């Protein structure tokens, strides 16, 4: 968690504090971007743009909001607005996610889903559903924090999250039964 003192210093014009602040959040920013836009290059671009926006807008951050939700609001907005993909693309060689073979698993009882399959399933979700899932699981946000980040009513967050999980579960269940992939 970013120290409040560091945020105050950055807002007061301390360039050193501001850069330290960006360094503290860059992984969180990138992670969200990566799982929303779905590939490394766009995630790098989106995350950099988000960090630049945070750099220029730090003065507009108000303490009544949590800093982390303010940051995530910026990065999710950028990802959804600017990096909206025309068609879903899936690349499998990034971050060494192993593509597991499910040819013969029909009768097996699997104890887990492959990360790659989950990611592909996330990519199929509508953007806001995807953002809710990413904030919930990659940022470990509560319903309220997600609602603040995405500027959505609490009930909408819940319904998006529940629907997203339901959807993901369906996709993954289909994969496991040896059904259509990708």
């Amino acid at each position, binding site marked *: 968690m970013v120290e409040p003192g560091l945020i105050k210093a950055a807002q007061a014009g301390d360039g*050193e504090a*501001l*850069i330290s602040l960006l360094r503290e959040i860059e*992984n969180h920013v990138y992670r969200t971007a990566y799982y929303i836009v779905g590939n490394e290059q766009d995630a790098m671009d989106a995350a*950099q743009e988000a960090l630049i926006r945070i750099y220029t807008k730090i003065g507009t951050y108000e303490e009544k909001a949590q800093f982390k939700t303010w940051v995530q609001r910026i990065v999710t907005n950028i990802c959804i607005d600017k990096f909206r993909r025309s068609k879903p693309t899936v690349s499998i060689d990034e971050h060494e996610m192993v593509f597991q073979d499910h040819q013969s698993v029909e009768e097996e009882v699997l104890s887990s*889903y492959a990360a790659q399959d989950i990611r592909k399933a996330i990519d199929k979700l509508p953007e806001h559903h995807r953002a809710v899932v990413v904030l*919930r699981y990659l940022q470990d946000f509560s319903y309220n924090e997600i609602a603040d980040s995405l500027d959505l009513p609490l009930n909408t967050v819940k319904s998006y999250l529940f629907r997203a999980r339901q959807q*993901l579960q369906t996709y*993954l269940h289909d994969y496991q039964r040896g059904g259509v992939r990708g």
Partner: protein
Amino acid sequence: MNCQEVMDYMQRQLDDDLDEREIEILMTHTRHCPECTAMMERLQMLSSGLTSLPKVTPSYSLVDAILPRLAELQTAQEGIETDAKPFGMTSEQSESARRLPSKRKWTDRFSIRALGGVIAAGVIVGLFIVNYNPNRSPGDSDGNMTASSEDRSSFVAANDSAASDTAMDTTDSANAAAANEAAPAEEPQTEAAPSSSDDQSMLKSMDSRNVDPNGETMPPLTSASEDNGEPVVKGNSPNYEFSGQSDGGAAADAGATDNALEDTGDVANKADTEVSDTDHQNSIASKEPVMASPISKDGNYQAFVVEDTVRIYTVQDSLMIFQGPKRAEIANLKWSEDSSVLTYEAKNADGTKQVYAVDPKTQSEQLQSSK
């Protein structure tokens, strides 16, 4: 309670959003409903899968990558205001900062204490230039092993002792070894050396330090760039510290002067703030500026040794695309003919020399051989 309502409970349970009574209701239902039990298992599996998704991190520092753009933004916002210090950083991070043009008011940081070192540095640099053998050609430092011992030792001594007075003896090869040994004792002066003055001595001293830890000359950076007809000496290029090289170190352009002074400001600042950490301070002062490789043959990359790590930057944008682990006595940075691999030597913990190969495309490093 029907299955649809239970679904909502299941979902909320995944987020630990149920109270005890609600959990009880959920359990009661699933005990008698195999479908809901199966669904709950799948959802729990999904949820734990989501929780354990890889916590991906960027392959290079995004903040480092955007520093040049932040600098532009800062300049645009504040015009030529000189007091802003947007890139001030912690000591670990100062490396990248010093490569950037910024509007720091270096005079604010200038300490009287540094001035003595500055004058000493000027003297030494003058001596060094006199002793410097410009025939030492770039790129064949190994071939120069046979260069006259006098010339050679003057190199070693002048570099190891930087600002130390003992370097005055360097023309005398018999004394050179002694000068070398005496160097550590002269550390305080050495550390003041980079805190140069506003005259040109700073730039000259940059030249004098354009060597690797073995005292061998590094190839001038400008040679490769001239081949490409693409000047490398730019304000925000990571190699600006060597900018004096191209014109003999005497007449550097104004931009380079600014940068050099920037550097000065930083080091002086460090000296003021890190008195408690003398070792660290020494390492910063004595290892500055960074050692550099030639630019890769295709003109795309250049590697630097910063704080005992090899870092590769793109020539065009000065982006750091690779940073290796800390290693001792890194030397002999070389690019392969097709620019696809950077090799360098480093000493292992047991003292053996090892050669590492870095592929800038994949940003990965491999151990190539041990000697």
